[in-house]
């Protein structure tokens, strides 16, 4: 926990400083663009792609535009590298090592063009190439698409606002229709706008962020210049709620205009590109290419001060009467009063706050102390810094320094209000209400209240799985749990039942409704076991919650009918079919089907039926685990069964696209033991709670010597005097790959050999065979520490050492040699899915009664098969 949070803090700090002013020479700009470009540069938003550009009036390239776009998102902490997976951006052939291109691709900000795929001889189709074309000019319509994506990342087009430019609208009958944005465009050349760009062109024009190019033409295929791009992105950047919107933004002041009047009688005006602070004939100018905001207060000492916020995140403090520059403080100011200058550590997003006095003395640092961080970690409180602004403009957070009480502060960092005295966690905002859990009494129960802290309602009596439970999230990734079927904004949650300290599998399913702003829960069923929500494909259909009865299972472990509810009615799906288990299969064409099993026959030790059914449980096809693709947690996966050496099986899912979901990868695939030991010689090597690999002369408790740091070291192997191990970089959420290290036990020298490891398959006398993050198989020669590609395959199973069997996607179960290449086809019988190979001389025992393993003649070795 500690490691993770500090890691996040460091990561945020690194991201915040990832950009710097990369203008390496004096540049030419147009007069109209000067202010935007100057401020954009002061904000450190210029990236290295423009380092060698000396004339910003020239066209910007696609790559340079993407860099600037990422720069804005990095600055606002709306992008991070957590999603990036090298296997994904490796498909792009023209991005090189450019950090921003990788970031944009990894975060799916841009899509590769000219995607190409190929099918290899084993029937595996892979995307082989994609191009970003970073050196080509970017067209206006493509810039609009990326600009709209940037707006989306800044939440501008999300939540309530999202509907403004949604892709679908509803007719009078409630049918969802695709909005024909192209026909909404009023430009004379609207027909020239590409279909994929029509929505973006419409939105950017509607927002006033992009305009026609004269004579009512948008010129979608025209190129944009560097300064046009900067001006566009800076306008977008300003939309994000900074500590303050720059004074006078959007006001064209050909003649002097009043911006605001202060309580002490001073007025702030704007004339041209200059702000003025005025009173009694004194006028103090503040250039808008230096200063973003002015704050003026009459202090307790009788002096009048002006705090002028610069774009370089410092604040100049002036005597507003004499015009003296008194002091510069190195932080961002967001307000002043009679005694203090209120500052914050960063202007974007939620942050930490601090105080200065007018002498420039720091009263309260705008950063966490280590003791505060320790306190936070110890208490597990959410950090304000990572709480997100809700769509209503407030930032909600549990204050770790104040007993976890819930506060809200507006997006300018002002108007902090305590809204709950409870010790709160897991705070969510949906549809105008807050949902949260509390500690202490009613631990784990779900509560809701209005954003101002009123109308507190306890929703669940027992531990609640949360509004955002796996079952109730839209499959399209939308965070809303509300079901808008027939315009009913239903939300559901599950409450658990506890009796005498036992939590029952039977659960209570509630629906939330609201009347006059008051939350009401209505019991849908008191007998909910497994639950799965099938979302309607569009809003003209109903979404249903499918569930089994749990009551009967608790009592007699028998099967249950499948039920479904839309929140209003509960109905039995099929009263002729009882099931033991059901699990969803999302087909690649978007349908949802169920894999059902049941009832279980004790005599035959098998299910009476095991098939794929439609949502009415009608038979579709016998279930073939190898055949069906699944979508689990939104990730397209293959279901993989793994045979252990004792003949038992374990199951896991393998993402088909290796760029998908780091935690899923790690959680489901990494099965290696952490306490692998070398029993030969005098060494014992293990990874315990000390986060590292050690050697010791006495496995029972001798002095340990750390060889390598790492919290998730596994697959330790010894080759001569060198140890090899795999580190999955546990705790580093930016990585889903593993690194194989070698450690020389004599010299202690440690080397990272390869860092693209998905999992180790097996080890031979002189090589480690592993699956790479691109799911291709590789061989690490430990004599030379070189890596080579071997027999390609995307579906690996580990069936003991040193031989592995696998079905290559269509027919054969294959035996591989120690170099990873196919050495024999063991069977082409498609009814045989698993085999265990036991080399002659191995003492591995296979329990043939378990699962019904059938011995097969195979020379001097032993071979078992399972249909």
């Amino acid at each position: 926990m500690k490691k993770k949070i500090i890691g996040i803090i460091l990561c945020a700090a690194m991201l915040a400083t990832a950009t710097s002013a990369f203008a390496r020479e004096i540049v030419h700009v147009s007069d109209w663009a000067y202010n935007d470009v100057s401020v954009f540069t002061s904000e450190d938003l210029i990236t290295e792609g423009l380092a060698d550009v000396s004339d910003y009036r020239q066209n910007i390239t696609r790559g340079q535009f993407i860099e600037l776009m990422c720069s804005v998102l990095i600055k606002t902490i709306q992008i991070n590298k957590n999603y990036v997976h090298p296997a994904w951006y490796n498909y792009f052939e023209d991005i090189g090592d450019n950090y921003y291109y990788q970031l944009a691709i990894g975060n799916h900000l841009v899509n590769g063009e000219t995607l190409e795929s190929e099918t290899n001889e084993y029937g595996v189709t892979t995307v082989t190439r994609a191009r970003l074309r970073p050196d080509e000019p970017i067209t206006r319509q493509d810039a609009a698409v990326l600009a709209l994506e940037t707006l989306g990342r800044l939440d501008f087009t999300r939540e309530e606002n999202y509907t403004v430019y949604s892709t679908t609208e509803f007719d009078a009958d409630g049918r969802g229709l695709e909005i024909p944005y192209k026909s909404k465009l009023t430009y004379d050349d609207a027909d020239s706008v590409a279909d994929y760009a029509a929505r973006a062109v419409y939105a950017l024009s509607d927002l006033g962020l992009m305009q026609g190019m004269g004579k009512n033409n948008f010129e979608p295929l025209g190129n944009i210049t560097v300064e046009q791009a900067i001006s566009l992105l800076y306008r977008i950047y300003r939309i994000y709620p900074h500590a303050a919107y720059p004074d006078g933004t959007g006001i064209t002041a050909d003649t002097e205009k009043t911006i605001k009047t202060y309580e002490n009688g001073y007025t702030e005006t704007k004339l041209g590109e200059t702000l003025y602070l005025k009173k009694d004939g004194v006028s103090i100018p503040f250039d808008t290419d230096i200063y973003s905001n002015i704050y003026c207060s009459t202090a307790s000492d009788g002096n009048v001060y002006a705090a002028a916020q610069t774009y370089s995140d410092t604040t100049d403090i002036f005597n507003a009467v004499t015009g003296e520059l008194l002091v510069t403080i190195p932080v961002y100011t967001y307000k002043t009063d009679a005694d203090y200058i209120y500052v914050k550590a960063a202007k974007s997003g939620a942050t930490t706050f601090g105080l200065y006095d007018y002498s420039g003395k720091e009263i309260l640092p705008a950063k966490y102390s280590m003791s505060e961080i320790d306190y936070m970690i110890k208490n597990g409180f959410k950090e304000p810094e990572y709480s997100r602004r809700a769509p209503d403009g407030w930032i909600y957070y549990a204050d770790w320094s104040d007993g976890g009480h819930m506060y809200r502060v507006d997006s300018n960092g002002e108007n902090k209000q305590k809204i709950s005295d409870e010790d709160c966690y897991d705070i969510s905002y949906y549809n105008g209400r807050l949902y949260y859990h509390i500690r202490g009494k009613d631990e784990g129960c779900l509560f809701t209240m209005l954003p101002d802290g009123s109308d507190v309602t306890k929703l669940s009596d027992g531990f609640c799985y949360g509004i955002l439970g796996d079952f109730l999230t839209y499959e399209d990734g939308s965070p809303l749990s509300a079901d808008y079927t027939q315009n009913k904004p239903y939300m559901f949650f599950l409450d658990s039942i506890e009796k005498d300290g036992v939590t029952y599998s039977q659960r209570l399913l509630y629906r939330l409704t609201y009347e006059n702003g008051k939350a009401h829960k209505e019991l849908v069923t008191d007998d909910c076991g497994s639950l799965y929500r099938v979302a309607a494909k569009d809003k003209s259909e109903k979404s249903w919650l499918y569930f089994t009865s749990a009551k009967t299972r608790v009592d007699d472990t028998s099967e249950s009918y499948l039920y479904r509810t839309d929140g209003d009615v509960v109905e039995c799906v099929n009263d002729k079919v009882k099931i033991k288990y059901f699990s969803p299969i999302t087909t690649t064409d978007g349908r949802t089907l169920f894999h059902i099993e049941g009832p279980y026959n004790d005599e035959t030790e098998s299910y009476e039926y095991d098939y794929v059914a439609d949502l009415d449980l009608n038979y579709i096809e016998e279930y073939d685990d190898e055949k069906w693709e699944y979508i689990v947690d939104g990730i397209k996966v293959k279901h993989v069964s793994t045979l252990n050496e004792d003949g038992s099986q374990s199951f896991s899912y393998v993402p088909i696209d290796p760029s998908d979901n780091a935690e899923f990868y790690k959680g489901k695939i990494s099965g290696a033991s952490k306490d692998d030991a070398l029993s030969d010689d005098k060494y014992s090597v293990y990874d315990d709670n000390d986060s590292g690999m050690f050697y010791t002369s006495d496995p029972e408790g001798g002095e340990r010597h750390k060889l390598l740091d790492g919290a998730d070291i596994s697959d330790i192997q010894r080759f001569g005097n060198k140890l090899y191990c795999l580190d999955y970089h546990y705790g580093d959420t930016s990585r889903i790959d593993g690194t194989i290290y070698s450690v020389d036990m004599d010299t202690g020298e440690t080397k990272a050999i390869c860092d693209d490891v998905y999992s180790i398959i097996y080890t031979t006398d002189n090589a480690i065979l592993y699956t790479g993050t691109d799911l291709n198989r590789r061989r690490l020669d430990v004599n030379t520490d070189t890596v080579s590609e071997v027999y390609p395959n995307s579906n690996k199973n580990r069936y003991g050492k040193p031989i592995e069997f696998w079905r290559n996607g269509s027919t054969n179960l294959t035996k591989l040699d120690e170099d990873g290449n196919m050495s024999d086809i063991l069977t082409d019988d498609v009814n045989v899915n698993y085999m265990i190979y036991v080399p002659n001389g191995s003492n591995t025992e296979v329990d043939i009664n378990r699962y019904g393993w059938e011995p097969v003649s195979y020379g001097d070795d032993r071979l078992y098969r399972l249909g």
Partner: protein
Amino acid sequence: MKRKIFAALLIAALAAPSAALAATVSEGEFAALPLGTSKSDVHASLGNPETASVNGVKEVYRLTDGGRAVLMYSGGHTYFGFIVH
């Protein structure tokens, strides 16, 4: 702590002699100025600016063609600059 007089009237009073001493530089001269140059070296090279911000971060030069050029300082050295057309 450096204290600088910033009253508008004083600015106006200072502006006249400052403008009289201000250099007019060519676009080429200005463009050739390497970023990272210290303020004293800039002045030695280009002469005095037409205007300077009170906090010392910005100086504006008049170009011979009538345009203007802007230098921004950070830590006493040029940080970036623009020739404005």
